[in-house]
């Protein structure tokens, strides 16, 4: 019941716009329900003493009624789910009504009022049939330790796996071939993408797409990209370096070995080096011993010194 109300609410806005040409069963269902509601509203109005009403006001009242009922359904559903049930009980509805500010005590009296009109039950329309999902295999029954009110197992294909094994490729030639073509494909795809999304140049006037060249774009500081190794290369260098220590890295490590002895002692002098932020902190210890004019602090102008 609550479900029906919820769907009615949700569907109402859609039905209005498409009521005329609606032909499918779901729409028919909603239409019929709405018609019933309209009858209800009209009878209530008659009860209240109206003789006639504009169509627009009836529509508005219908809408209000529908949303009120929908809200009751939605809210009742929440209460029932809150207590871990799937079907709302009477008390859920009562709590809902109370919550919505409705005096429940007046309800029995209202129901028994003398002048109430009885309207015929709405014609039975077919519930919209939700197309059945394609089932594959048989759903498993619950094992004994799972209570039966728990949802059913999903279709087996969603959780059953069939592992397959393939021989790992170990042939050198195939591996190289694969690596090469993979890289080439990636590169080609990447460059093509870049060419497609940016400006291009072409070697042929009649065809700009077969050999697209990414347009040459001048740099503001061209030497940086030209000289600095790319991040990829840096990464490679680190990898190869860690695997094989050779002379070249030894020389670079030299100062590092030295400063392990005295780096701590000379920490307070680091301010001297502030003019030269590029020097790594780890080398400070060694640099301080060096008396190089470019490392000396910049002097303050003379007048300030006098102060």
């Amino acid at each position: 019941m609550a479900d029906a109300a919820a769907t009615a609410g949700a569907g109402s806005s859609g039905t209005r716009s498409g009521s005329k040409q609606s032909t499918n069963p779901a729409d028919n269902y909603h239409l019929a329900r709405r018609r019933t509601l309209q009858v209800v509203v009209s009878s209530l109005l008659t009860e209240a003493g109206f003789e006639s009403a504009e169509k627009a006001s009836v529509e508005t009242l219908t809408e209000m009624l529908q949303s009120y009922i929908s809200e009751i359904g939605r809210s009742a559903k929440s209460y029932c789910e809150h207590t871990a049930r799937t079907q709302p009980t009477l008390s859920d509805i009562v709590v809902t009504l109370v919550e919505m500010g409705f005096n429940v005590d007046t309800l029995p009296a209202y129901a028994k009022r003398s002048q109430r009109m009885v309207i015929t039950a709405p014609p039975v329309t077919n519930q919209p049939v939700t197309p059945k999902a394609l089932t594959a295999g048989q759903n498993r029954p619950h094992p004994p330790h799972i209570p039966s009110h728990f949802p059913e197992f999903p279709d087996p294909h969603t959780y059953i796996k069939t592992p397959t094994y393939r021989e790992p490729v170990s042939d050198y030639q195939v591996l190289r071939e694969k690596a090469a073509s993979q890289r080439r494909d990636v590169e080609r795809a990447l460059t093509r993408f870049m060419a497609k999304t940016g400006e291009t140049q072409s070697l042929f006037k009649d065809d700009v797409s077969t050999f697209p060249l990414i347009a040459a774009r001048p740099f503001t500081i061209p030497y940086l990209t030209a000289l600095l190794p790319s991040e990829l290369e840096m990464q490679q260098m680190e990898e190869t370096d860690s695997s094989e220590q050779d002379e070249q890295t030894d020389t670079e490590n030299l100062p590092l070995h030295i400063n392990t002895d005295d780096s701590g002692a000379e920490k307070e002098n680091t301010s001297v080096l502030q003019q030269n932020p590029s020097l790594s902190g780890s080398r400070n210890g060694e640099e301080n011993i060096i008396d190089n004019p470019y490392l000396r602090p910049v002097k303050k102008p003379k007048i300030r010194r006098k102060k």
Partner: protein
Amino acid sequence: MPPTGLEPARMNRKKGDKGFESPRPYKLTHQVVCINNINFQRKSVVGFVELTIFPTVANLNRIKLNSKQCRIYRVRINDLEAAFIYNDPTLEVCHNESKQRNLNYFSNAYAAAVSAVDPDAGNGELCIKVPSELWKHVDELKVLKIHINFSLDQPKGGLHFVVPSVEGSMAERGAHVFSCGYQNSTRFWFPCVDSYSELCTWKLEFTVDAAMVAVSNGDLVETVYTHDMRKKTFHYMLTIPTAASNISLAIGPFEILVDPYMHEVTHFCLPQLLPLLKHTTSYLHEVFEFYEEILTCRYPYSCFKTVFIDEAYVEVAAYASMSIFSTNLLHSAMIIDETPLTRRCLAQSLAQQFFGCFISRMSWSDEWVLKGISGYIYGLWMKKTFGVNEYRHWIKEELDKIVAYELKTGGVLLHPIFGGGKEKDNPASHLHFSIKHPHTLSWEYYTMFQCKAHLVMRLIENRISMEFMLQVFNKLLSLASTASSQKFQSHMWSQMLVSTSGFLKSISNVSGKDIQPLIKQWVDQSGVVKFYGSFAFNRKRNVLELEIKQDYTSPGTQKYVGPLKVTVQELDGSFNHTLQIEENSLKHDIPCHSKSRRNKKKKIPLMNGEEVDMDLSAMDADSPLLWIRIDPDMSVLRKVEFEQADFMWQYQLRYERDVVAQQESILALEKFPTPASRLALTDILEQEQCFYRVRMSACFCLAKIANSMVSTWTGPPAMKSLFTRMFCCKTCPNIVKTNNFMSFQSYFLQKTMPVAMALLRDVHNLCPKEVLTFILDLIKYNDNRKNKFSDNYYRAEMIDALANSVTPAVSVNNEVRTLDNLNPDVRLILEEITRFLNMEKLLPSYRHTITVSCLRAIRVLQKNGHVPSDPALFKSYAEYGHFVDIRIAALEAVVDYTKVDRSYEELQWLLNMIQNDPVPYVRHKILNMLTKNPPFTKNMESPLCNEALVDQLWKLMNSGDDGTYFCKLKIK
């Protein structure tokens, strides 16, 4: 009053080397240069100089100084206002009204203009009148202090501003400025006596933005903030007397690196490049040690600075106690090819610190001594660092270069002596420029001049031994260093100037040998020797009849008379013979030591004492001669064309241990396309012990031979199986091993072989499909992931190889090149080039070597008619803002296009760039390329050659303030 300046100059020559007498009527003792404002936005400089001079003549009333493009505001002498005139005749070399327009006229006018401001003739652009109040003071030869306020706006030379147009402060943008120029061009940025012979002490002050560093000559005494703390002033003192021409400056937001081995050495580079700087300079201390050891003399200055800057004028420029390098020399540890080149640049600049900066020259005609000595000791460093093979290879290369140049243009004169100044006495009348002044030379001539100078020094060494040679250098240095510590009053400073006569006297004192004939032949006279040699073996007399002819009538040649060494390898060993080359003797009989007896199995002794087994079946049964070499030690500046049989060249290639001999035989074997030559070359290629450069040239020779014998060639294409064996996987021979460049020799060979192979052609004169597939596979399977080194040069050479494989397209007359009629092989090549070029945008390679190769390859495809010829792509890559190597490659293509398609529009575009490009190096390079590959030549009808162009070029030359415009002249 007549100008007195010229008289001492003439006296100087007569007096010879009895001390140096200045051509100027005063002596400079000290100069202050203070630049207190540098504006990067406007590219301007404001400052003053103060020169302390002592008059040497009583009636000195005019003082001439050098100054170019500076605006002079005010001149004061001893605080008195002084009148001055500024006139620079080089701004307009030939006056407008003159109708005459030929090279000769221009050259004379230009020489006259340069001469009119030459400090070594006592002249200058700036003429200052000594105020009359001081005349009495001058007559007593008392000190004068000349204070000049000047400014410089948008300098065209001398100082070069690099201001990248990005956001941020100048320091954040990496803006920098540095001094540059050719020879003595300090006058471009401050008034001075711009001569290498006027030495004085210096005080240099530069006020710069607080985030910047000013690097200059001498010791940094202190750095002081200005009052607003936004700027700081760098105070430098240079107490060693130094010529103004050796003063330099570099200002920028440099990163500072103190050399970990020598704390008095400091390196500077632009932001973000510090890791590269660390690696690049980590080697410098070894060069220091080497020079100090051989010269037995400490480095003369108390400190040394290297600065690496962008848009460099030249790769290396040496100044007193500092050198300015191109930032493009910096490299990381992953780069192989650049490392030796950069080290060579470092070593070169350091050699010039001793000879060139510390020791200066008396006059332009003594330049060869400085260039010679610095080049010579640099050669010694090469020998020690890269080995004897590399050294001999280099000497051979330099010798070939100078010989080719002299034969082409007609002689390089090291020590020009200018007589009465009459046109007839002009020792260089064959040239289109005057050699009287460094500024009137063509760039190429000067390069060759330096090359010849160091080769002549080597000849002197051959004559007097290296020991004596080094003693002479040591003597020059110790005299100079004693003099440098003296006060000005002692008149000792001229000891720091070297002159030809002084140098020669020193040689004769130290060695006791007379080298006058040698000097006369190579220094006082231009030209090289051209020998033609052939021989016959006289079996009866067991004598080798050698005939040596000379060509001394062609331009650039001279007659050689004197000893000539000939080495003959016989069955019994190697024998040296010294022949006397005389006027009329052509034939020389050389007795052979061994009888022809090749049946005996015996090892054959070589020159170096080694004994080897040889297969003697190829040789002439009647003759014991294996091979003959003329002047094996390269002790004459010569070209030798020697005839001997093919098998002799093959023996020489296989068994002679001297790399020069091997290289000569490779060159000779090109003319003998036989299976035996092929075998000899492949054997050399495979020999691990063989010098890698020899093996590399063997590759190209083998390709040529293979092409000549294409109809009889059997087996796979040349070098393919060799390459497969050396560099491909054992199990799958079509796949190259993953890169491992730990062995540089094989790296270079691996790089070169495909390039040479791509030159192979089949009977249809096409590159064999097999070769192309092979190269494409190399590219495909190239895998550098496990390599310690970058493969950018390798990949670039693979593209070069692809370009080499391209042959002219078969075209139906003037068919438009479209994609549809593209040759399928070319399509594959183009596919690779496109991918490489595009990948460069995402993952740029070091120095963009790959882009450079791609651009060249595209031009090759255009030229061969596979792709429509179109300069648009190259023009976009030639624009300012691309890396300089890319620009040059692109410009080369445009220049080539201009020539092939005779495009007036492109020529105009190039000329426009020559006039307006911000980078002087590029401007110079375009001119250079245009002369090397001229769009039209003198005798050719071309639509490009019209009146308007002549007009334009003439204007360009006439207003040029840069000597480099000279090259262009040849086009006309």
